[in-house]
């Protein structure tokens, strides 16, 4: 199998949520001597970018995306141990969670998926996360980014409190926010360093804030 064919196959298998095909192609990539980093970026991550675009256009829905995620993670499991230390920087860490009082975590999970695909190391705190936990974990993990998600006008009010605490205790960590009721203006008012409207943009914003994932 040609290199281009394997990479395209990996991307397609990710989009189609085909776990078996993604696993086989990841193994094939290693056998063919394709660099694992390239297979992740031009195979799995490229596929996830298509998934994200399709979701935003209404051509794909959450059940299919969850299957794509399954396929992507199965390929990553095979490819990651082959990453050459010299080729990749230490992955940047993102502490991610849905703020207190809010259990809407489907969007946050998509953001995690895209950040994972782009090579960030995501520490997922889940949903309904107590305010102080974000900063505690960011300090403990020496994280570059704290990512806050809120879907409700009632819960988003926790964001400025968390960001204020973060800026006092860990000034070098940047804060990125997103979710339905958040706008770029609101993010600015809250003192956030970045705002993303969707999961694909979250990757772009994270990269622009801290200079790249893997």
């Amino acid at each position, binding site marked *: 199998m040609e290199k281009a064919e394997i990479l395209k196959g990996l991307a397609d298998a990710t989009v189609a*949520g085909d776990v078996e095909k993604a696993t086989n192609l990841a193994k094939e990539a290693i056998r063919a001597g394709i660099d694992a980093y390239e297979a992740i970026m031009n195979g799995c991550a490229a596929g996830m970018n298509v998934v994200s675009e399709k979701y935003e256009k*209404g051509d794909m*829905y*959450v*059940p*299919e995306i*969850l*299957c794509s995620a*399954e396929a992507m993670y199965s390929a990553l499991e095979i490819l990651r141990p082959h990453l050459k230390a010299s080729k990749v920087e230490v992955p940047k860490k993102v502490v991610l969670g849905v*703020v*207190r*009082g*809010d*259990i809407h975590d*489907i969007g946050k*999970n998509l953001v995690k998926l895209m950040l994972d695909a782009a090579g960030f190391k995501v520490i997922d705190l889940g949903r*309904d996360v107590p305010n102080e936990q974000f900063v505690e974990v960011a300090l403990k993990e020496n994280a570059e980014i704290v990512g806050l998600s809120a879907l*409700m*006008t*009632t*819960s988003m*009010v*926790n964001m400025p409190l968390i960001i204020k605490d973060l800026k006092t205790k860990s000034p070098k960590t940047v804060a990125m926010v997103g979710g*339905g*009721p958040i706008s770029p203006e609101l993010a600015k008012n809250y003192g956030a360093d970045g705002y993303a409207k969707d999961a694909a943009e979250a990757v772009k914003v994270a990269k622009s804030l801290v200079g790249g994932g893997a």
Partner: protein
Amino acid sequence: MRERMTPMERMGAVLMGQKPDRVPVNPFILGFAAKVCNLPIGDLYADAKKSFRAQVLCAEMYGYDATPMYGYASYGAWEFGGKIGMPYEAGQSAPYVIKHPVETPEDVDKLEVPDPKNAGSIPISMGVGKLCYENRMPVIFQCGEILTTSAMVAEPARILSWMIRKPEVVHKLHKKIAEYFVAVADYFTSTFGADKCMAFTGGPVESNKLINPNQFATFVYPYMKEVHSKVLGMGVNVVLEHPCSDQNKNLPYYKMLREELGWRGKYIWVFGPETPLEKQIEIFGNHDIIMGNVDPPSFQFKDFEEIVALCKDNIERGIKNPSGYILGVGCELPPLAPPINVYAMMKAAREYGSYQ
């Protein structure tokens, strides 16, 4: 305008297809009522007496026309043996699931349809119902929607991926949930009489933010139709149906539901703000009531004049519905909305919603 009707008379008139003095207002208030009464929001969901009293007082204070109800989106997990938390802590605004009772397909096989009499929140909902009944208000019980409830029983991501990986398991679970909804309807109607009851159904997981219309057709429609048909068959005449968030692509199925049920009963449609009133009137206008769908977050972000303007626009468009219109919010009114913005709804209804 001078009001000539009480809230009960006003709502009664709309339900009978008559013109009231002004458009009725139902601001879809739950947690906000607790705030108004200086109660923790948890009390609204955990204590029937406090819930009833807070909702009655809030309605009285503003003069809006809704009567108390009990229901929330995370419904189902507790009733089927899981665990929920009540919103007693800062920032929390509604009950939330702590443990989903279903984690594996085998759990679905083992899952028993609970007896409504002592299932989860039903005794609280029954408590609110009894107080409504004693005060000659309609008794509202929750009986749907199927996918939102199964997502609470089995966890949203799990149920959504099973829709593709294990569709037969989803159908098995939906059958059990549909059976449970019918049992709940039976419990309420046999306690109070079907003519005193109103069914409340709807939910956010059916939204096209999550699923496509074919998935709605396969996994929601057949069960929704079965439950609605049986509930109407028991003699319940009014259904408050809330397709939450953007469900524009599911509209053909809601239309089909009404057609296949022969337009029996009176439905009150509460779509999200994403569904234009004109579209709703075109589909349901000859038979059903439309409850206007002003954008919920706006109530927290916008000021008094802006809310009056949004409500005025909603009234001018909704009042054209031949089968009746209620000024309302497209989902629960945010509990942190400035109190004056609820008054903005009343002001708009009185100034621009007069039928006199």
